């Protein structure tokens, strides 16, 4: 991993600096039409670098608005066909003195991680009002959740699931091998690039692995994908939390509905207990000592392979084996991301789909549109006008033989 090609450090200084520094140049809160002329003397190097970064991109229409950030479509100034998504992080009232921690997390981790299955951060700059803008690659085909939910129009099979799981697991493995916990893996954080590649996004909850004795918050990961150790309030955990999320996503891909959709933490524990097994001292030594451990009302034994086969059999016995290992209650016994990739499921039939063959949501519409375009002869002629016409002697006269 090398330093990213843009001046994030400089940026951090620029945007984290005290508001009083705005008087001297382009990073000011005045409207963008009224700017001091090329007063190069008033810009220090840091501001200059920020300006240069900012000038490389043109911001376009707004794609979405959230409480935390607005997302705009944009493109590179030198190449309008190079589309980017610009995530403009809103200034949050609680964090007047600096950047919001999730913004810092996203920035610090994304600028370090470069992998085909992780969304790439192309640049970052601050704009007026000290807003932080992250320039991310534009992933036009939506997310995995869209595909999972659209039961009527999107069909996929075991090879597609294997391909998606492969990409997801690689992304998680890459994070973990670089000592980063993602802590928010779920289908709608898995975006799909134009070529079908699935990319892990939203590093707003990510953090590096903790040192021994250092406490981490247990209040991470969207509830449905949260592992039992976090539900029980563990403060010292490992990559196993992400692996559990991967397992629940895996299950969701197969059954096309959230596997453990609990409304609250209590219900989550109950759902896990019922579907996978009740955590006990037998299957998870020490679990009763966890801070938020609740004594179960009824104890369900850990589900055996036959139970899983009933529900998830479509991925084959090897796939079910992998799924079971990702959903082991005791995080110490749970499979790691690296071990997942070493699992023999990847090498058994069927082979994962090639990424260009994966189902995509807009694909059907595109195809229909293309068909509609082609239908009347007139449209077809347009493209062929310059082509030398050639009579076909191949089939039309074939009766002569």
């Amino acid at each position, binding site marked *: 991993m090398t330093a990213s090609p843009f001046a994030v450090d400089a940026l951090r200084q620029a945007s984290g600096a005290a508001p009083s520094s705005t008087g001297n140049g382009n990073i000011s809160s005045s409207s963008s039409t009224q700017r001091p002329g090329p007063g190069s003397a008033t810009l220090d190097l840091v501001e200059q670098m920020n300006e240069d970064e900012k*000038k490389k991109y043109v911001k376009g229409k707004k794609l979405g608005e959230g409480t935390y950030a607005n997302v705009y479509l944009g493109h590179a100034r030198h190449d309008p066909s190079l589309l980017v998504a*610009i995530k403009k992080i809103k200034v949050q009232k609680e964090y007047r003195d600096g950047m919001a921690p999730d913004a810092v997390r996203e920035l610090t981790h994304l600028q370090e991680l470069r992998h085909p299955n992780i969304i790439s951060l192309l640049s970052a700059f601050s*704009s007026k009002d000290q807003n932080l803008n992250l320039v991310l690659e534009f992933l036009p085909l939506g997310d995995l959740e869209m595909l999972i939910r659209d039961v009527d129009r999107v069909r996929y099979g075991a090879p597609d699931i294997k391909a998606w799981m492969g990409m997801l697991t690689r992304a998680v493995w890459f994070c973990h091998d670089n000592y980063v916990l993602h802590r928010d893996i779920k289908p709608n954080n898995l975006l799909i690039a134009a070529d079908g590649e699935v990319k892990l996004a939203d590093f707003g909850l990510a953090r590096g692995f903790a040192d*021994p004795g250092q406490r981490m918050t247990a209040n991470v990961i969207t509830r449905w994908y949260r592992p039992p150790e976090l539900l029980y309030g*563990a403060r010292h955990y490992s990559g196993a939390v992400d692996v559990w999320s991967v397992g629940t996503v895996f299950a969701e891909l197969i059954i096309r509905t959230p596997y453990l959709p609990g409304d609250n933490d209590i219900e989550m524990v109950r759902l896990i207990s019922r579907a996978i097994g009740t955590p006990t001292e037998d299957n998870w030594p020490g679990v009763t000592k966890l801070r938020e451990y609740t004594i179960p009302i009824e104890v369900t034994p850990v589900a055996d392979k036959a139970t899983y086969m009933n529900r998830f059999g479509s991925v084959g016995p090897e796939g079910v084996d992998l799924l079971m290992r990702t959903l082991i209650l*005791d995080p110490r016994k749970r499979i790691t991301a690296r071990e997942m990739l070493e699992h023999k499921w990847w090498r058994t039939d069927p082979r994962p789909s090639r990424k260009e063959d994966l189902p995509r949501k807009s694909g059907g519409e595109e195809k229909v549109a293309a068909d509609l375009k082609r239908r009347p002869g007139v449209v077809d002629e347009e493209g062929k006008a310059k082509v030398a*016409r050639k009579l076909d002697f*191949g089939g039309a006269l074939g*009766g*002569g033989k």
Partner: protein
Amino acid sequence: MSRKPIANARGPASGSTTSAALPGLSSDDMCPVCKTIRYLNKDMEFLIHPDCYHFMCSNCVNRIFNDGPNQCPYAGCHRTLRRKGFRTPFFGDLTVEREVDIRRRVAAVFNQHEEDFRTLRDYNNYLGMVEDLTFELVSGTDAQRSSAEAQLQQWEAEHKADIERNRKAGREADEASRRRIAAERDAARQRRIDAIKEAEEEKLERARTREAELDTLASAPEGQRPGGGVQLKRRVQVNRAVEAAAAATTNAAGVPGGGVAGAQPPMITKLSIQGLKEKRKPPAPEGPYDPFGGMDFVPSRYKLHDGLVHPDVDKYRFDLAHATGGYSFDDYRARAMFEAFAGLGVFIEDEKEVGSGLSASEVAAMSAGIAAVGDKMELD
């Protein structure tokens, strides 16, 4: 094969198949081999063999070639022909017949599609090349012909797989378009029938209303008759005008349907798009699926051993909170080593050359740009 060969008689020509020398074929001519004339044999049928295009009647063919391969009976033509190869020519002009055969053959070999080419120009060049080859085969000199023939055969041998693939794809496309056309034709027919039915119903309806109107007028009281008569006349006129207009519109309405139907068989633009100079690369044979995507992070500068201990770490090793939550001391050890060695072996000069980080030129551009910043900011 309903077309009758057209009269275009020419005497039997000398042996070779050069286009100029090809004999024509005539329905009322006589067989050049046995001299039978149609007058004597009404059902006489001429056959040709695509090796030399010399025609003769079916009787001769049977007589000469029934016992196996034999020489062409034309004087000077020494080709050995077989019974199996004879067929009824489609065209009266055997020159055309031969050219069509050649073109058919070339087209079967050079069956690339426009999509196979990177640019339209490449494709057109390719078509040009194929046409040149075809022309040489059709009307070149003997030398040209044989060289073209050799080229064709060579190409065919070399690109067997491609040709086969294109052929298959073409057949599928044909099938699809045939189905589509059939479906469209059905739909058009349905539309036409509906339109006709509708028009008829309208007509009936109009007749009925007029009848009713006339009845009411006829049964009107006497006093209103004179004015009524005028009204009646006028109304009839109006009715007629309306009817004419309506008929016009129904006609007009009918026309689009008919037009669609008439224009129905949309040309299968199979008008052969083919050709190629540079070939689309076949998908690279895939190796076994690599779950790791070709990456590995085995540390190169150190080796991880079990049992690296440090008292600060060890005191947590048996801490229940760490163990139960799944905290991994192996991960910690690996990370500690990774961080200790991070940056070793990174040389800023190399980084600059590779281009990560600001390159020298970028720095220069930046300093040059310092003067130019200003009101160009579109982003906020």
